[in-house]
């Protein structure tokens, strides 16, 4: 019954899918009734606050909580001692959630308090005495790799080398991808360019700080209500950290105020649960903005060398990249994905990408939308752009000449399935934007990008209500409007109007396991599962119709939401609509529901080409974005408005990353800009409209051809904007962000 990728035919004509239906869950969000992480309260609730280390690197010799516990209104004070043994795969999370022997970065949690009021909790925090022994620190990725750098984890030995070294190091692991003979390839080139690029750490920038309300009982049973990209992941990690059964903890996903990968892990949820257990009260913990910036999961800062050889006719003969990513105080940066994605847009005979995962005294990184890929694309697409300029070749033509296409061998190994890179490049070449004239100090930049996209474990249940309406329960938190697209796919498959389907996010006690909402997987995987669940229900409804008509079920077909005899010789029977069958469900066997629990494989990759015009003020180095156009392959755009929204949101995060956003650490290793004033994300007046062109090259791995689109849109902008600024300023920019002082310096004006 489930869709067989590659075997079952793709549906091509649709009634609901592809239309811009109004959003079914929007009313609460425009009236202020929608409840996000911090909006939940409970009777007898205490306020939880976390004490964080002010040092970049320090040994914790002792923590005295006695005077804090004496404060009136305080019901619980916890430290690392309140987190017992746990499975190996959550050891790093346990240490990041609450420091153990050492405080590893500025903002690392060291203790927490729960009290009847925020004022009492604040007062108690001040009375916790921590005896720190400050240690030397390192925050820069290249510095951290030097043998002379202070060792952060004495038990860390570099993996991925031929021989495991004896001495501990800040280099956690080495990765390598590629094929062919790079040295030979470079020799065949007419021009070889090698450059080093640096990018600073950036934050996902979601407007809603992390927040949760936990209520934990000493009987090992509890509830937690939190904003997260994966409440099943929260259950899995928190139950492991607290040593309770997964079934003991019910996690409800609140509305989520943005995540972009930063809420695919836990920071405060285990703390709230531990406080609640100790205080025997519900406890609410809400991060401040400065806590979010200091102590949640920004992406890596990087240092990348790229060398590419190209012939006069534009053929790329070889590509070689070395990528160094620091992922905070714990291993696990996204450097492997950066190394894999770096040359993914190019069909190369000789390619190599070597990645180093490095630790430093910074917060533990978390995924940030296509984690690792934007920085790698920035480096590769910048060198390709420079080669095109030197050889006087059109950047789109060169990319078309070398573009990966169906069946070509990807730089990270496997052969590609059906892919849409060429389609996006051709759409870009044909677009009026590419032909408009530029003025003084103006430049145009193009760049391509890619993301793998992900299927993952997905459970959906679909209930047919007695009045013929549909209750659809999915387990993937909806950040960008996926309830609308998933509901529309179920309505399309069932043949009922879209507003007859109500799609909700079920809690962990009401639905089978679901992987986190990440990897641009939700519209693909929950959509696929919803279609399968609809087909499951249709099968059952056909059985009921067959029973009512007294004919075999094989003689019943389902069209436009109605069961019909498949041919005249099955006898004359009035068609039965879904509503008719639903009304008789009780009498004909019981409630009707469809289910699908799968590991949704067959996710199709999504490619994009971005084009951007900028103007550089030669006197101040200020960069103005004049025009921005995104061309991205969505396979099949289920709800075009929200597909465009992903294109526009990713592009603008890329603009912030390219121009102004950066983590600034002082010499003392503390974060200097932990707030939205000096961590500058783009504001409305900084930007033009972002034009979105949806390209549709269907993905054979999905019944409707759907591809995930959420992440690819952030991969090309860093390079596209840098290429545009480099041509406007007449000098190659090799550092992000391209803040005005850096541009002015590159122009040689200061």
């Amino acid at each position, binding site marked *: 019954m489930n869709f067989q990728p590659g075997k079952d035919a793709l549906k091509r004509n649709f009634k609901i899918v592809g239309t811009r239906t109004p959003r079914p869950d*929007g009313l609460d969000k425009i*009236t*202020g009734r929608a409840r996000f992480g911090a909006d939940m309260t409970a009777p007898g609730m205490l306020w939880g606050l976390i004490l964080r280390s002010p040092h970049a690197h320090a040994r914790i010799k002792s923590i005295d909580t006695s005077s804090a516990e004496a404060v009136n209104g305080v019901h619980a004070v916890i430290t690392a001692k309140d987190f017992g043994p746990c499975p190996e795969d959550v050891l790093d999370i346990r240490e990041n959630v609450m420091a153990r022997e050492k405080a590893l970065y500025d903002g690392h949690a060291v203790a927490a308090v729960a009290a009847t009021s925020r004022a009492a909790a604040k007062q108690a925090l001040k009375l916790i005495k921590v005896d720190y022994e400050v240690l030397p620190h390192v925050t820069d990725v290249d510095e951290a790799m030097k043998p002379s750098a202070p060792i952060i984890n004495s038990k860390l030995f570099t993996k991925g080398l031929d021989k495991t070294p004896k001495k501990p190091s800040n280099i956690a692991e080495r990765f390598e991808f590629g094929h062919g003979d790079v040295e030979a390839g470079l020799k065949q080139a007419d021009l070889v360019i090698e450059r080093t690029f640096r990018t600073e750490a950036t934050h996902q920038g979601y*407007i809603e700080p992390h927040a949760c309300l936990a209520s934990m009982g000493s009987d090992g049973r509890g509830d937690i209500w939190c904003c997260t990209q994966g409440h099943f992941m929260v259950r899995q990690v928190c139950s492991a950290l607290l040593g309770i059964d997964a079934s003991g903890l019910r996690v409800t996903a609140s509305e989520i105020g*943005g995540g972009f990968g930063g809420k695919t892990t836990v920071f405060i949820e285990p703390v709230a649960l531990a406080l609640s257990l100790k205080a025997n009260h519900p406890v609410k913990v809400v991060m401040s903005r400065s806590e979010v910036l200091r102590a949640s999961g920004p992406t890596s800062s990087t240092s990348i060398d790229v060398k590419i050889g190209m012939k006069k006719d534009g053929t790329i003969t070889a590509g070689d990249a070395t990528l160094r990513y620091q992922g905070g105080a714990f291993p696990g940066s996204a450097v492997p994905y950066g190394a894999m994605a770096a040359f993914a847009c190019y069909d190369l005979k000789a390619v190599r990408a070597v990645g180093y995962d490095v630790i430093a005294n910074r917060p533990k990184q978390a995924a940030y939308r296509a984690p690792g890929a934007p920085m790698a694309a920035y480096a590769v697409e910048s060198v390709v752009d420079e080669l095109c300029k030197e050889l006087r070749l059109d950047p789109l033509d060169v990319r078309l000449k070398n573009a990966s296409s169906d069946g070509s061998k990807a730089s990270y190994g496997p052969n590609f399935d059906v892919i849409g890179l060429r389609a996006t490049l051709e759409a870009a070449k044909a677009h009026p934007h590419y032909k408009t004239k530029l003025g003084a100090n103006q430049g145009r930049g193009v760049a391509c990008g890619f993301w793998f996209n992900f299927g993952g474990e997905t459970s959906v249940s679909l209930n047919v209500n007695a009045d013929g309406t549909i209750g659809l329960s999915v387990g993937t938190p909806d950040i*960008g409007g996926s309830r609308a697209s998933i509901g529309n796919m179920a309505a399309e498959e069932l043949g009922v109007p879209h507003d007859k389907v109500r799609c909700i996010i079920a809690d962990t006690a009401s639905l089978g396991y679901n992987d986190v909402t990440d990897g641009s997987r939700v519209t693909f995987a929950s959509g696929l599962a919803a279609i399968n669940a609809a087909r499951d229900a249709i099968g059952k409804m056909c059985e009921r119709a067959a029973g009512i008509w007294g004919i075999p079920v094989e003689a019943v077909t389902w069209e436009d939401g109605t069961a019909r005899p498949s041919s005249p010789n099955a006898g004359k029977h009035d068609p039965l609509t879904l509503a008719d069958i639903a009304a008789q469900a009780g009498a004909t066997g019981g409630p009707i529901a469809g289910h699908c629990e799968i590991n949704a494989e067959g996710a199709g990759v999504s490619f994009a080409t971005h084009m951007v015009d900028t103007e550089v003020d030669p006197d101040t180095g200020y960069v103005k974005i004049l025009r921005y156009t995104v061309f991205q392959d969505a396979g099949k755009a289920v709800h075009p408005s929200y597909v465009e929204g992903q294109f526009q949101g990713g592009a603008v995060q890329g603009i912030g990353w390219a121009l102004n956003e950066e983590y600034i650490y002082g010499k003392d290793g503390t974060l200097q800009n932990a707030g939205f004033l000096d961590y500058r994300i783009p504001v*409305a007046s900084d930007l033009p409209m*972002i034009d979105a062109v949806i390209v549709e090259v269907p993905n054979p791995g999905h019944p409707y051809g759907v591809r995930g689109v959420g992440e690819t849109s952030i991969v090309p902008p860093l390079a596209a904007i840098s290429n545009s600024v480099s041509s406007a300023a007449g000098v190659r920019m090799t550092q992000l962000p391209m803040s005005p002082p850096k541009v002015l310096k590159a122009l040689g004006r200061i």
Partner: protein
Amino acid sequence: MFQIQVSTSINGDDTEFSCEADETLLDVLRDRLGMTGSKEGCGTGDCGACSVIVDGRLVCSCLMLGAEAQGCEIETIEGMADGTELHPLQQKFLDHAALQCGVCTPGFLIAAKSLLERNDDPTEEEVRYWLAGNLCRCTGYDKIVRAVLDTAKDMRKPAKTKKAAAKKRVKA
């Protein structure tokens, strides 16, 4: 720490509350009055998610003390619709998919309402500069600006056709 007794008007309702001297209006709205529509994104006036209108003036409720609300007229997102009659901006935000996660939406709707009360025919640039105090990370602002411009165009139409249009759309 004795508390301050404040009497004010919120969305037309006379409201009494007591609060600490250093408690912000945002904390009062959310934690004492259960009006969680205004959101805290930063607590320092840098994101606009807590925007409310006080005596006709668009402000950040996190940069105002609860005590300062004495005798004021406060408008929050909860009061933007008139019963089931949505404000045209609210409907347009849905029609234009001008929200994704929605946490910044209350702040944007209040700010846009304040703009259209002052300027019924704003240019794109005027909309962008007026709304620059409201951060959004999901949408890239494009559809938000289009929704505000489209609402302004609709609201400039003669009253008769507007009423019918508003009624029809709510059912859609």
